[in-house]
Protein backbone atom coordinates (compact mmCIF):
# COMPACT_ATOMS: atom_id res chain seq x y z
CA UNK A 1 0.00 0.00 0.00
CA UNK A 2 1.25 3.46 -0.92
CA UNK A 3 1.43 5.64 2.18
CA UNK A 4 1.53 9.43 1.93
CA UNK A 5 1.61 12.05 4.62
CA UNK A 6 -0.84 14.93 4.03
CA UNK A 7 -1.87 17.93 6.10
CA UNK A 8 -5.33 19.50 6.19
CA UNK A 9 -5.93 21.43 3.00
CA UNK A 10 -3.60 19.27 0.95
CA UNK A 11 -4.84 16.98 -1.77
CA UNK A 12 -3.76 14.11 -3.91
CA UNK A 13 -4.74 12.92 -7.36
CA UNK A 14 -5.60 9.43 -8.54
CA UNK A 15 -5.41 9.18 -12.30
CA UNK A 16 -6.58 12.15 -14.32
CA UNK A 17 -9.93 12.88 -12.78
CA UNK A 18 -10.07 11.83 -9.12
CA UNK A 19 -8.98 14.28 -6.47
CA UNK A 20 -8.98 13.54 -2.77
CA UNK A 21 -8.56 16.40 -0.37
CA UNK A 22 -7.87 16.12 3.34
CA UNK A 23 -10.19 18.83 4.66
CA UNK A 24 -9.69 18.57 8.39
CA UNK A 25 -8.20 16.29 11.01
CA UNK A 26 -9.72 16.09 14.48
CA UNK A 27 -9.66 13.66 17.36
CA UNK A 28 -12.88 12.17 15.93
CA UNK A 29 -11.30 11.44 12.59
CA UNK A 30 -10.27 12.89 9.28
CA UNK A 31 -12.70 14.73 7.03
CA UNK A 32 -12.07 13.84 3.41
CA UNK A 33 -13.42 15.51 0.27
CA UNK A 34 -13.61 13.58 -2.97
CA UNK A 35 -13.91 15.01 -6.46
CA UNK A 36 -14.60 12.30 -8.99
CA UNK A 37 -16.61 11.76 -12.18
CA UNK A 38 -20.32 11.27 -11.58
CA UNK A 39 -20.20 7.61 -12.59
CA UNK A 40 -17.44 6.72 -10.12
CA UNK A 41 -18.89 4.79 -7.21
CA UNK A 42 -17.62 6.04 -3.84
CA UNK A 43 -18.60 3.86 -0.89
CA UNK A 44 -17.63 3.71 2.74
CA UNK A 45 -15.84 0.40 2.88
CA UNK A 46 -18.02 -0.76 5.78
CA UNK A 47 -21.04 -0.57 3.46
CA UNK A 48 -19.38 -2.86 0.97
CA UNK A 49 -18.41 -5.21 3.82
CA UNK A 50 -22.00 -5.19 5.07
CA UNK A 51 -23.36 -5.89 1.59
CA UNK A 52 -21.07 -8.90 1.29
CA UNK A 53 -21.85 -10.07 4.80
CA UNK A 54 -25.60 -9.78 4.16
CA UNK A 55 -25.26 -11.80 0.96
CA UNK A 56 -23.53 -14.48 2.99
CA UNK A 57 -26.04 -14.29 5.85
CA UNK A 58 -28.91 -14.62 3.35
CA UNK A 59 -27.71 -18.07 2.34
CA UNK A 60 -28.76 -19.44 5.73
CA UNK A 61 -28.62 -23.14 6.48
CA UNK A 62 -29.58 -25.53 3.67
CA UNK A 63 -33.18 -26.58 4.15
CA UNK A 64 -32.31 -30.24 4.76
CA UNK A 65 -29.89 -29.20 7.53
CA UNK A 66 -32.14 -26.58 9.04
CA UNK A 67 -33.25 -28.47 12.15
CA UNK A 68 -29.75 -29.66 12.98
CA UNK A 69 -28.16 -26.23 12.51
CA UNK A 70 -30.84 -24.47 14.51
CA UNK A 71 -30.51 -26.93 17.35
CA UNK A 72 -26.75 -26.35 17.42
CA UNK A 73 -27.18 -22.58 17.52
CA UNK A 74 -29.38 -22.85 20.56
CA UNK A 75 -27.35 -25.54 22.29
Amino acid at each position, binding site marked *: MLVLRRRAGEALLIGDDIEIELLAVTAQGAKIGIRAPRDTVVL*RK*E*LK*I*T*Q*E*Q*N*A*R*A*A*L*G*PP*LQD*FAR*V*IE*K*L*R*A
Partner: protein
Amino acid sequence: MPSVDTKYFGTMDYREESVYDFPAGLPAFVDHRRFVLIELPQHAPLVFLQSLLTPELCFLAFPILVVDRDYHLGIAAEDLRALELNPDRQPELGTEAMLLALLSLHADSVPTANLLAPVVINIQNRRGLQAIRHDSLYSHQHPFELRTAEQSC
Protein backbone atom coordinates in the same frame (compact mmCIF):
# COMPACT_ATOMS: atom_id res chain seq x y z
CA MET B 1 -55.13 -12.49 8.70
CA PRO B 2 -52.49 -12.05 5.97
CA SER B 3 -50.13 -14.91 5.27
CA VAL B 4 -46.58 -15.16 3.95
CA ASP B 5 -44.65 -17.92 2.22
CA THR B 6 -41.53 -18.39 4.31
CA LYS B 7 -38.17 -19.95 3.56
CA TYR B 8 -38.17 -22.35 6.48
CA PHE B 9 -41.68 -22.67 7.86
CA GLY B 10 -43.99 -22.98 4.85
CA THR B 11 -46.96 -20.60 4.73
CA MET B 12 -47.55 -18.70 7.95
CA ASP B 13 -50.20 -16.30 9.12
CA TYR B 14 -48.84 -13.10 10.56
CA ARG B 15 -50.12 -10.03 12.28
CA GLU B 16 -49.43 -6.56 10.88
CA GLU B 17 -47.72 -5.76 14.20
CA SER B 18 -44.98 -8.23 13.26
CA VAL B 19 -44.19 -6.40 10.03
CA TYR B 20 -41.32 -3.93 9.98
CA ASP B 21 -40.67 -1.33 7.31
CA PHE B 22 -37.16 -0.85 5.99
CA PRO B 23 -37.50 2.21 3.76
CA ALA B 24 -33.95 1.75 2.44
CA GLY B 25 -34.01 -2.04 2.43
CA LEU B 26 -30.85 -3.75 3.65
CA PRO B 27 -27.41 -3.39 2.03
CA ALA B 28 -27.31 -5.80 -0.95
CA PHE B 29 -31.08 -6.22 -0.63
CA VAL B 30 -32.36 -2.70 -1.14
CA ASP B 31 -35.62 -3.82 -2.78
CA HIS B 32 -36.68 -5.68 0.34
CA ARG B 33 -38.53 -3.06 2.31
CA ARG B 34 -40.88 -5.13 4.45
CA PHE B 35 -39.92 -7.96 6.75
CA VAL B 36 -41.88 -10.13 9.16
CA LEU B 37 -40.15 -10.94 12.40
CA ILE B 38 -40.78 -14.61 13.13
CA GLU B 39 -40.30 -15.53 16.78
CA LEU B 40 -41.07 -19.12 17.69
CA PRO B 41 -40.80 -20.40 21.27
CA GLN B 42 -39.05 -23.58 20.14
CA HIS B 43 -36.31 -21.55 18.44
CA ALA B 44 -35.89 -18.73 20.98
CA PRO B 45 -33.77 -16.70 21.35
CA LEU B 46 -33.13 -17.15 17.63
CA VAL B 47 -35.43 -15.05 15.45
CA PHE B 48 -36.05 -14.93 11.71
CA LEU B 49 -36.33 -11.87 9.54
CA GLN B 50 -38.45 -13.00 6.60
CA SER B 51 -38.80 -10.77 3.55
CA LEU B 52 -42.37 -10.21 2.37
CA LEU B 53 -41.07 -9.77 -1.18
CA THR B 54 -39.78 -13.29 -1.67
CA PRO B 55 -39.81 -16.45 0.45
CA GLU B 56 -36.15 -17.15 -0.36
CA LEU B 57 -34.84 -14.25 1.71
CA CYS B 58 -34.88 -14.98 5.43
CA PHE B 59 -32.15 -13.94 7.82
CA LEU B 60 -31.30 -15.73 11.04
CA ALA B 61 -30.65 -13.29 13.85
CA PHE B 62 -30.13 -13.00 17.56
CA PRO B 63 -31.06 -10.10 19.79
CA ILE B 64 -27.74 -8.34 20.09
CA LEU B 65 -27.34 -8.89 23.83
CA VAL B 66 -27.54 -12.64 23.28
CA VAL B 67 -24.37 -12.40 21.21
CA ASP B 68 -22.64 -9.90 23.48
CA ARG B 69 -24.30 -9.05 26.76
CA ASP B 70 -22.04 -6.00 27.12
CA TYR B 71 -22.69 -4.68 23.61
CA HIS B 72 -22.10 -0.96 23.51
CA LEU B 73 -24.61 0.83 21.29
CA GLY B 74 -23.09 3.11 18.67
CA ILE B 75 -25.88 4.07 16.29
CA ALA B 76 -25.02 7.11 14.19
CA ALA B 77 -27.17 10.21 14.62
CA GLU B 78 -28.27 10.13 10.98
CA ASP B 79 -29.53 6.57 11.41
CA LEU B 80 -31.41 7.51 14.59
CA ARG B 81 -32.99 10.41 12.72
CA ALA B 82 -34.01 8.14 9.84
CA LEU B 83 -35.80 5.94 12.36
CA GLU B 84 -37.36 8.97 14.09
CA LEU B 85 -35.51 8.15 17.29
CA ASN B 86 -33.85 10.82 19.41
CA PRO B 87 -30.57 11.55 17.60
CA ASP B 88 -28.93 13.01 20.71
CA ARG B 89 -28.66 9.78 22.65
CA GLN B 90 -28.67 6.03 22.15
CA PRO B 91 -32.14 4.44 22.43
CA GLU B 92 -33.20 2.22 25.28
CA LEU B 93 -33.22 -1.42 24.30
CA GLY B 94 -36.55 -3.19 24.63
CA THR B 95 -38.71 -0.11 25.04
CA GLU B 96 -37.54 2.18 22.24
CA ALA B 97 -35.45 0.02 19.97
CA MET B 98 -34.71 -3.58 19.16
CA LEU B 99 -31.26 -4.52 17.88
CA LEU B 100 -30.67 -7.73 15.96
CA ALA B 101 -27.36 -9.22 14.86
CA LEU B 102 -27.61 -11.07 11.55
CA LEU B 103 -25.97 -14.49 11.57
CA SER B 104 -23.78 -16.09 8.95
CA LEU B 105 -23.01 -19.78 8.91
CA HIS B 106 -19.67 -21.13 7.82
CA ALA B 107 -18.85 -24.65 6.71
CA ASP B 108 -15.56 -24.84 8.59
CA SER B 109 -15.94 -22.53 11.60
CA VAL B 110 -18.41 -21.31 14.18
CA PRO B 111 -21.32 -19.08 13.08
CA THR B 112 -20.60 -15.37 13.10
CA ALA B 113 -22.78 -12.41 13.99
CA ASN B 114 -22.52 -8.99 12.36
CA LEU B 115 -21.94 -6.63 15.28
CA LEU B 116 -20.55 -3.91 13.01
CA ALA B 117 -23.92 -3.39 11.39
CA PRO B 118 -26.85 -4.45 13.57
CA VAL B 119 -30.43 -4.22 12.36
CA VAL B 120 -32.04 -1.47 14.41
CA ILE B 121 -35.82 -1.26 14.73
CA ASN B 122 -37.81 1.55 16.26
CA ILE B 123 -40.37 -0.36 18.30
CA GLN B 124 -42.87 2.51 18.26
CA ASN B 125 -43.15 3.09 14.51
CA ARG B 126 -41.86 -0.35 13.46
CA ARG B 127 -39.34 1.17 11.11
CA GLY B 128 -35.95 -0.44 10.69
CA LEU B 129 -32.58 -0.11 9.04
CA GLN B 130 -29.18 -1.69 9.19
CA ALA B 131 -27.00 0.76 11.08
CA ILE B 132 -23.32 0.54 10.18
CA ARG B 133 -21.15 1.74 13.05
CA HIS B 134 -18.69 4.53 12.42
CA ASP B 135 -16.17 3.19 14.91
CA SER B 136 -14.19 -0.01 14.79
CA LEU B 137 -15.19 -1.52 18.14
CA TYR B 138 -17.01 -4.49 16.64
CA SER B 139 -16.49 -6.97 13.86
CA HIS B 140 -18.80 -7.84 10.97
CA GLN B 141 -17.82 -11.45 11.71
CA HIS B 142 -17.99 -11.79 15.47
CA PRO B 143 -17.54 -15.49 16.31
CA PHE B 144 -20.66 -16.67 18.04
CA GLU B 145 -19.70 -18.76 21.03
CA LEU B 146 -22.51 -21.13 21.80
CA ARG B 147 -21.81 -21.01 25.53
CA THR B 148 -22.45 -17.27 25.53
CA ALA B 149 -26.02 -17.86 24.43
CA GLU B 150 -26.60 -20.49 27.06
CA GLN B 151 -25.50 -18.18 29.84
CA SER B 152 -27.78 -15.34 28.83
CA CYS B 153 -30.88 -17.52 28.47
